């Protein structure tokens, strides 16, 4: 039992990271119907920007919560800018082309970030400094949670609520919803679709950056290809929850994180990468639009 | 069951979420008839086409074609039984030429199988030639011969409407459903099309159900007209009966209201 609970704690922690990345996928998809394959690589960049920020602040020798926050914010800002540049330079020119053309562009951007990363950061792993030294907190029944896990969970939670607030209660957030539902009608409201799309990319990239830094705090090995698998799985999580649906992304992320940890713990860790997809296929066959997605009948 | 009834819509209700698009509709179409289905925008006319052709399964009720229930069948199966249609918003196969558009609709009459096609044997060649000849004949009937090798989307609008009809005919239907074939046509084109529809009906011994906004077209060629409003059949009868039915006039023109004139007039 205690083992199961411990696995659950680990699973929820991972799930919240998947959820943060999945949110970016889902927002961009909701607005552009584009699978932004490069999103996982933005997560990687987030970890690296955090790494450089931490090094600049000398946070390893002299850690403090303030510096940790600074590291997180600078990574988010840097990736936000990357998101804007990515959208303007690569995606905007293909927005009116076929969706497949946009997809291939996204793949190109993804490869560019990965290989550019290898070129700039070197292929060997870097190790994220211990800004927040690990401490274990016993939860009873033999279950422990580390302060880092708590941090991951709470920061993700704060960010998710911040996102929720932005989307539901700010002018720009409402405009985002409008654009995602019908860009043409949104333009008639005086909403600049271009700006909203750029803003969405920025927001998604910032969340991915946060995920990158949070993961690096706990699992400090960072390298230029670290974004591929989490990116892919977060995307699956987004589809699982119903792509384009923000609560769905969070739910999908959690389901994914828990399912993975349970498979690793009770079946075989070697099937870790497969479980995500088995789960996905099963759920999609039962609910073709994802757990929270709505099926829209095509108008004839 | 009356053998002269080709299609019977038997108390069909079609519900989308909270919206009843069609409510308790009863409609019979006799063999060889040309029936008009009219009503204001959003009255549920296209929905009728959609459940007859299997795009949707009716929420309640049955659809009988030649006495056999077809509700709930997949559209291609219904097409094979002899019901084909055109679409209000023109759904041509955009990347293909006109002849291909027609050939695709003749698809289920092909006799050569996949292996014949891959081997390019005589059977395939004959089958293909037969289908091509028939497609070209249909294009000829619809006056599209000169466009046969043109991509469907490069056709002028009026020709696209005709191509949709030619395509629907290629499936050798016994019941043809035409969804606003004259929409977007000018009066002369409408006029021509009307004659063409009559002509086609006689030539291929068809039964036709026609949705149309252009009253001239409907009143001109239909002997019998059914009127839908809010998913309910509010009238059915000859063109003259329909024209003078006050409920129809109200549904169509709206009540005559007296509101003050706008300034500047």
């Amino acid at each position, binding site marked *: 039992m205690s083992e199961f609970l411990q696995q659950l704690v680990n699973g929820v922690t991972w799930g919240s990271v998947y959820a943060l990345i999945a949110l970016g996928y889902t927002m961009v998809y909701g607005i552009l119907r584009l699978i932004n394959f490069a999103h996982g690589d933005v997560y990687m960049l987030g970890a690296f920007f955090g790494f450089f920020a931490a090094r600049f602040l000398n946070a390893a020798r002299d850690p403090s919560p303030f510096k940790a926050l600074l590291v997180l914010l600078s990574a988010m800002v840097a990736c936000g800018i990357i998101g804007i540049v990515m959208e303007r330079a690569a995606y905007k020119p293909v927005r009116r082309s076929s969706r497949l053309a946009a997809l291939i562009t996204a793949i190109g951007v993804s490869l560019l970030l990965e290989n550019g990363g290898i070129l700039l950061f070197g292929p060997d792993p870097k190790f994220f400094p211990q800004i927040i030294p690990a401490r274990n907190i016993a939860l009873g029944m033999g279950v422990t949670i580390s302060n880092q896990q708590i941090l991951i969970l709470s920061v993700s939670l704060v960010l998710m609520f911040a996102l929720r607030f932005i989307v539901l209660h700010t*002018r720009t957030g*409402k*405009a985002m*919803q*409008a654009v995602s*539902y*019908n860009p*043409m*009608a*949104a*333009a*008639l*409201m*005086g*909403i*600049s*679709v271009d700006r909203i799309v750029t803003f969405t990319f920025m927001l998604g990239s910032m969340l991915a950056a946060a995920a990158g830094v949070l993961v690096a705090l706990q699992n400090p090995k960072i390298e230029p290809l670290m974004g591929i698998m989490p990116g892919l799985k977060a995307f699956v999580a987004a589809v699982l929850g119903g792509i384009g649906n923000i609560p769905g992304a969070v739910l999908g992320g959690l389901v994914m994180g828990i399912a993975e940890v349970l498979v690793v713990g009770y079946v075989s860790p070697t099937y870790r990468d497969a479980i995500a997809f088995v789960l996905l296929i099963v759920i999609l066959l039962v609910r073709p639009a994802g757990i929270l997605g709505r099926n829209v009948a095509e108008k004839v | 069951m009356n053998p002269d009834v080709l299609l019977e819509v038997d108390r069909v209700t079609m519900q989308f*979420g*909270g*919206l009843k698009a069609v409510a308790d509709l009863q409609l019979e179409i006799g063999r060889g008839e040309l029936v008009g289905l009219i009503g*204001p*925008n*959003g*009255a549920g006319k296209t929905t009728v086409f959609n459940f007859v052709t299997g795009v949707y399964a009716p929420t309640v009720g049955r659809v009988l074609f030649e006495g056999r229930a077809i509700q709930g069948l997949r559209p291609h199966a219904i097409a094979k039984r002899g019901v084909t249609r055109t679409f209000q918003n023109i759904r041509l196969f955009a990347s293909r030429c006109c002849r291909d558009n027609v050939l695709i609709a003749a698809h289920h009459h092909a006799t050569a199988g996949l292996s014949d096609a891959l081997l390019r044997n005589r059977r395939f060649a004959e089958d293909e030639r037969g289908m091509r000849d028939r497609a070209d004949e249909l294009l000829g009937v619809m006056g599209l011969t000169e466009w046969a090798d043109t991509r469907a*989307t*490069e*056709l*002028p*609008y009026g020709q*696209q409407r005709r191509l949709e009809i030619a395509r629907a005919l290629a499936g050798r239907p016994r019941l043809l459903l035409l969804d*606003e074939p004259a*929409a*977007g*046509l*000018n*009066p002369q*084109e409408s006029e021509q099309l009307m004659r063409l529809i009559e002509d086609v009906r006689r030539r291929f011994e068809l039964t036709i159900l026609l949705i149309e*906004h*252009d*009253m*001239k077209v*409907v*009143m*001109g060629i239909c002997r019998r007209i059914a009127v839908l409003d*809010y998913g309910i059949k509010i009238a059915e009868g000859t063109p003259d009966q329909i*024209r003078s039915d006050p409920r129809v006039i109200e549904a*169509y*023109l*709206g*009540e*005559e*209201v*007296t*509101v*003050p*004139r*706008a*300034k*500047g*007039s």
Partner: protein
Amino acid sequence: MLEVRDLDVYYGAIHALKGVSVRAESGEIVTLIGANGAGKTTLLRTISGLVPSRAGRITFEGRDITKMPAHEIVGLGISQAPEGRMVFANLTAEVNLELGAYLRRDRAGILEDRERVYTLFPRLKERRRQSAGTLSGGEQQLLPIGRALLWRPRLVLLDEPSLGLAPLLVREIFRTIHQINRGGVTVLLVEQNAHMALSIASRGYVLETGHVRLEDRASALLENPEVKSAYLGG
């Protein structure tokens, strides 16, 4: 105020508007009538900058807006209430209305205008927390009009506001249109309900397959046998 001259618009190979010229003077209600597919909606969309034109010129208060992006055209004071399907079904009725005031910054004024819309359409007030997709067709139809009002445009383009509505509601909507107009807003109205539209308009255009067939004072068009025949058949 608004002048459209010799507009040519293509959808792919389809020539949707063929040299259309239309104008609206300040304070007028001008109506565009015509059968489905005649190009009425296309014309409104082109004016709003949603559809690019291939030739011709659109000017608003003397400014050329032909190539302006849609959201900037809105900024100039041209609002369009598109047909009912273009509501944001995933958002509540209230948010739908608020989006109409997207470009406004005066919080107080927006609230005031919102109340005005609610007074105009009490049913929207009742349902303001409901997502627009769950509203009835008629209520959905009210939203774009309310939205357009919240922006306080100088010119409003209305696309078939009576589409699929019960007669009672149609009358309500037309009364509202008239009120809006009296408040100083110029109206360009696309309608199928020719009778109704012509009865409140000052001038009208009859569109047919992408060009203007007739242009006259509304009262004259109302009496025109050609118009009658086009709408009820011979």
